[in-house]
């Protein structure tokens, strides 16, 4: 190919993008939508259910305080500590539940795989930043709250290019 036609082709293919739809979106106002409510694990079948791996959610009525999640995380990030809670559940005699330090957690989800009682799952919430380190530690009470996450933007492919809409 001659030099001139090489340049012309390059400019042509670049200038096409003046009319192609924008790929990016405005993040804090618009948010991505995820499939499902987050990563879950079915211990009976031994296989996970696809979903986004964000902050955890803890079912207080299911957790037995068996510490298997804390043991699983020991070699990964040591993010889980077992703490005493002021609640009386008959499946949880010792009244201990996991507390997660998001300053350490790497969101691998292997603690969810380790929980045999359907008590620990993950959610779509990824906005966890805080001004102090202490606020990154989520107590069992905080982990119980279902996050309010409403993302509606998806990657779609149209005739005029890929875009978020």
């Amino acid at each position, binding site marked *: 190919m001659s030099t001139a036609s090489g340049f012309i082709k390059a400019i042509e293919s670049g200038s096409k993008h003046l009319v192609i739809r924008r790929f990016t979106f405005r993040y804090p106002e618009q948010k991505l939508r995820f499939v499902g409510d987050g990563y879950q694990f079915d211990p009976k079948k031994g296989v996970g259910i696809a979903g986004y791996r964000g902050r955890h959610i803890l079912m207080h009525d299911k957790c037995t305080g068996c510490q298997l999640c804390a043991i699983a995380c020991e070699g990964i990030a040591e993010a889980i500590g077992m703490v005493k809670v002021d609640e009386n559940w008959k499946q949880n005699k010792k009244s201990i539940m996991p507390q997660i330090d998001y300053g350490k957690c790497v969101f691998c989800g292997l603690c969810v*795989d380790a929980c045999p009682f359907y008590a620990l799952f993950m959610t779509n919430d990824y906005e966890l930043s805080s001004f102090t380190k202490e606020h990154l530690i989520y107590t069992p009470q905080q982990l119980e709250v279902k996050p309010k996450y409403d993302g509606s933007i998806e990657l779609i492919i149209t005739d005029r290019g890929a875009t978020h809409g």
Partner: protein
Amino acid sequence: MATLEEKIEETRRLGLQVVKETEEDRLMTLSIGPQHPGSGHFRFTVKVDGDYIVYCDPDPGYVHRGEEKMCEYRNVIQNIPHLERPVIHDSTNVTYSYSLAVEDLMGIQVPRRGQFIRAIASEMNRQVYTLYWLAIYGIFLGHSTMFMWPAGDRELFIDLLERLTGARVTHAYNIPGGVRNDMPEGFKQRCLDHINYFEKRLKEYEDIFYNMPLFRQRTEGVAVLSKEDAVKLGVTGSVLRASGVPYDIRKVEPYDVYNEIDFKVQYMKTGDSFARSYVPFLDMKESCHIMRQLLDKMPQSGEVRTKLQPNPKGPAGEAYRRVESGRGALGYHIVSDGTPKPYRVKISVGSFRNMLALPFLLVGNKLADMPAVYWSLNYWPVEADR
């Protein structure tokens, strides 16, 4: 103006020694890196004579994390998240070869659907890595459009991987015994849509970058690595294929379902910087073709994972398995003494081997060609240091 003789006389009068300029004095030593001025966290010193590089000494190790030692204190499952950290853009391929080695060691069979899913995930992850690398290559040659485009189009595959694995970059998806979860609904159609669109984009990449006369002039004929030298230096991946050796682990040592897939090993004969940058591009094209076949041949339903014990352990022994990662052969050698924790893990990475070609290629080139040569090596400093 004082003449030279007068100057020498003056110097002598002051009691100073007169020294003649030597050959050595012509050379200037430059330190490139390690604060990421386009080299990654990696330093190399070059000596330049005018514009030309006459000596190069790579000095890796700034991001050494002791991955191999860390493996000895964790069981085989807990090792997964930290092993993928050195090269987060290609994390599925890292855990792929690790899982293959552990499966060999423990004698685990992976269900057929699981094999297909992890092959698809690894192809996608290779695209993500190659696009990221291409973006850096573009910006270091001063082509900022080529930085924006691949960095944006990465999103096509990151979006798919996010749906499949639940994380955008560090997936922790492969696990000894298969994959952690099945595909979500409608995933196959979405994959095909994205692949079709991506193939159209690849044509535009060719127009704006690879066929661009400026890019060609900067890379063609620069730092030629001959076939014999490439083999002797032990380079791997796209660097080896650019020198005319059609060597791809997926072909020479097919793992999982790759022996059922029909694909060609992409290679070029010239061995210059252009070939080294064009071969990964050809690989991306071929990878789209492979992904289509994988999606087509995949069983529609079935198990994806063999269940393991919580603290899995196998018999004492050793295993070595390799996969083709974005940077070439990536191998894990695991020695087990029968306990849940590996006795020794050795990681063999393509980045380190390709880096060894750097002094060989840089010497004799102009300093201004340094980015074109350095990035064409498809080298990831963090992975090389492990």
